[in-house]
């Protein structure tokens, strides 16, 4: 059995359908849509000018490599990755996680084999996809929020009304799992995540085939590992789940 349905077929049939069998009525673009676009452009221009009049773009003192800012924050859209540095080593937080996110995003259309709910808002037709995507999206936003609003000097947690003058330096007694225990629990987690659904819901596996199924479950296993590791750290003070001579997880 082929691993993937031949893509040309998979793509052309829906293309034919969208072109010739669309149920909705058609409207001329001129003038209605063009006019709406024009109004949006005017409104946005006004908003941008008003915003630019009311608030100045930040400009601190001239850059000086000798005097570091505390805290130094990445631009807001990358602060989520910076926040992950609390829980993961830089090669995971700064390199592996963003690369895996990008790869998984690009794979979505090729691993989602549910043809229902295309071109309309529908939760009931594609619960599995929507729940997992929203989970990831909200996790990204939460990390941004914590990193941007709740982190103060030395990347400690400060509530918005707490003064940054008060130096916080929380003693943490972190410990790591024994390498053997760590390796076994990680492998067990992956195995459970990947094998259990295939055993319990056979058609969930069958519909996808082995390649799609493996990619989907592996990426989900990695995604849900992030909040689990955060919890392990916050609740049990665990620094690393797996310690090896080359890298730590």
């Amino acid at each position, binding site marked *: 059995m082929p691993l993937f349905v031949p893509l040309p077929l998979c793509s052309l049939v829906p293309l034919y359908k*969208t072109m010739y069998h669309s149920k909705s009525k058609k409207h001329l673009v001129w003038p209605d849509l063009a006019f*709406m676009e024009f109004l949006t452009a005017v409104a946005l221009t006004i908003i941008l000018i008003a915003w630019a009049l009311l608030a100045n773009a930040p400009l601190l003192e001239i850059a000086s490599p000798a005097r570091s800012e505390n805290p130094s924050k990445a631009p807001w859209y990358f602060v989520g990755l910076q926040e992950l540095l609390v829980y993961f080593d830089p*090669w995971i937080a700064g390199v592996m996680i963003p690369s895996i996110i990008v790869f998984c995003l690009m794979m979505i259309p090729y691993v989602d084999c549910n043809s229902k709910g295309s071109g309309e808002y529908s939760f009931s037709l594609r619960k599995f996809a929507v729940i997992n*995507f929203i989970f990831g999206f909200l996790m990204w936003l939460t990390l941004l929020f914590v990193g941007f609003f709740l982190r103060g000097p030395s990347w400690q947690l400060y509530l918005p009304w707490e003064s940054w003058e008060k130096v916080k330096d929380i003693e943490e007694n972190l410990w790591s799992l024994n390498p053997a225990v760590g390796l076994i629990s990680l492998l067990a987690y992956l195995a459970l995540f990947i094998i259990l659904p295939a055993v319990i819901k056979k058609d969930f596996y069958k519909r996808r085939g082995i390649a799609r199924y493996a990619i989907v479950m592996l990426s989900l296993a990695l995604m849900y590992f992030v909040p689990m590791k955060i919890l392990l750290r916050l609740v049990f003070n665990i620094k690393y789940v797996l310690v090896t001579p080359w890298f730590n997880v």
Partner: protein
Amino acid sequence: MKPNKNIWQSIRFSPLFKSIFRHGYDDTKQNKILQIRSNVFLHLHPVKVPAHAMKIRFTWCMGGITFFLFLVETITGILLMFYYRPVPEYAYQDMKYLEFDVPFGILLRNIHRWAAHLMVGTVMLHMLRVFLTGSYKPPREFNWVVGVMLLIFTFLLSFTGYLLPWDQLAYWAITVGTNMIRATPFIGHEGPFALLDKYNDVRFMILGGTEIGANALLRFYVLHIVVLPAAAIIFMAVHFWRIRKDGGISGPL
């Protein structure tokens, strides 16, 4: 129709005018179609779109707004280039100069800055809406991939621009951001299985040094004003073309 009724009429029917705008303005279906068809800018659109696609609650207008913000960034960015020199001796001074001396300089810089932040937000929302309407499903799979590339270019455009003011905020934000690159497996000098050292690893390549300095500023500048915008424009061209070729905006089958 009498051609020479008044000045407007004589312009309207002059050979010059008709050579530029080929059709009339009478409220006929033919004119409405020509309005889109015969205009190079408007013909990004199809002549007709399905009724559901015109509703704001379907697209949230987010793709269009993202594109509009990109245009704003291009225009304000070109204007800023007249006043900005990407070397440590001048970069910061030029920001002060923009703020205090250049007429409307501060307004220009503010618009460029805020529109950039907004664009990062709208591109994320656009992706969310495309996901929620399942619009990445066949036949639009590849356009989603092109979209993910555009998402990355948008982040990188914003990130490279962040260094240019050459103030403490810029310097340390980019330091934090680029320090993580050291940890890249194999090709970063602090990553697992590091093969290279501080002076030839991937971070050195990006910064042109071991620290952020004149080379990094110049590199970020060239990436910010030439390389990344060019890449974004090429991918946007493909993105828009593919929307049309994939059967127009998605809708219930």
